[in-house]
């Protein structure tokens, strides 16, 4: 799906749970879309596209925010819990820990919306669960 078409559709969409979406395109070297769920206090989801994937990312925390002595325990906890988190996985980009979901570029609109909503719910859970490891 073309990201520009996706923005238009998503901006007018309302989920069964009553969530709507505030979308904003971010200018840069690659096409990035920022999506915030109105009615859900969460984190912004950033969407970017490669030749075969649509990647939805939430930036969680940076290395500087981790309590140094808890770092290994936190990493183990992330590995242990990763498989339980629906449709999302952890990763690190540079010094930033992220939660992301990857979909095929041929995914239909509903699947991308499902990913955005689930990712947001997951991110809130993850930050709450990991806050003891953070400064």
């Amino acid at each position, binding site marked *: 799906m073309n990201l520009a078409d996706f923005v238009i559709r998503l901006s007018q969409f309302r989920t069964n749970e009553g969530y709507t979406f505030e979308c904003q395109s*971010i*200018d*840069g*070297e*690659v096409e*990035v879309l*920022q999506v915030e769920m109105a009615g859900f*206090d*969460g*984190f912004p989801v*950033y969407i*970017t*596209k*490669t*030749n*075969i*994937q649509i*990647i939805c*990312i939430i*930036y*969680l*925390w*940076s290395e500087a*925010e981790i309590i140094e002595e808890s770092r290994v325990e936190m990493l183990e906890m992330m590995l242990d819990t990763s498989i339980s988190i629906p449709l999302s996985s952890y990763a690190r*980009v*540079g010094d*930033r820990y992220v939660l992301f979901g990857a979909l095929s570029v041929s995914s239909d609109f509903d699947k991308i919306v499902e990913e955005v909503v689930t990712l947001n719910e997951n991110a*809130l859970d993850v*930050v*709450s669960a*990991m*806050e003891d490891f*953070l*400064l």
Partner: protein
Amino acid sequence: MNDNKSNENEITGMHILKKIIATIRAESQELTDAVMGSYGTRKIELEYESAQSKLKEAKLALTEMMRKERQSTHIFDIIVEKISQKELLIDEALSHNNEQEAMKLAFEVVDLELNRDFQAESISSIAKNIAYLQGQLEQSERELKEINRQLTMLNTTENVRKATATIMGNIDEADASLLSAKKSLDRIRSKQKGKVGSSPLNKQLIKGFGSESSVQKSSSCESEVSKNSALDVIKRIQDKR
């Protein structure tokens, strides 16, 4: 210079994920360029194009071979049919004691049989070639898929890095304090508390089912939330200064 070249070749010869890991670990510009730079990506793109061209060639050759096989099988069938007809004619000639005619037809059958054997050999050879080409085709398909997978990994890594740089630049400009996960969590929690305290549903529940003390508790909770929110506003403005 030569050392650099051999090092470069060694790098590009490595498996793509290993290259990405090496890049992340080393964070050296040279490695980054080798893996992510236009040279590394272009080299893989060229490999992809070459594999695609091999695949196209193999498909064309296979189509040609299959055409030849069909042609030879058709000729073979015609010869076999002709042999059957000639054998019937020989039988007929013999039944009329026309040995001369029978002998003439027999020579023709021998020629046809030689041709038939030649065609059979040709069909068998073509079949072997088809099998070989099909193997080559599958090999090219696998190669193509693998190169495509490697390109995807490169593109994804490159894309996510670029996207992150763009996003971080954008957030830094907007509000640096938003980057802290804990601050965000606190902000979300205080917002949620605010919503629980002031939501019409909550007020209705208190009105309908709550005791006076629970209403008082709720009011004190609401004022606490307001106080927290006000502190948040002051903090936010102070952070911006």
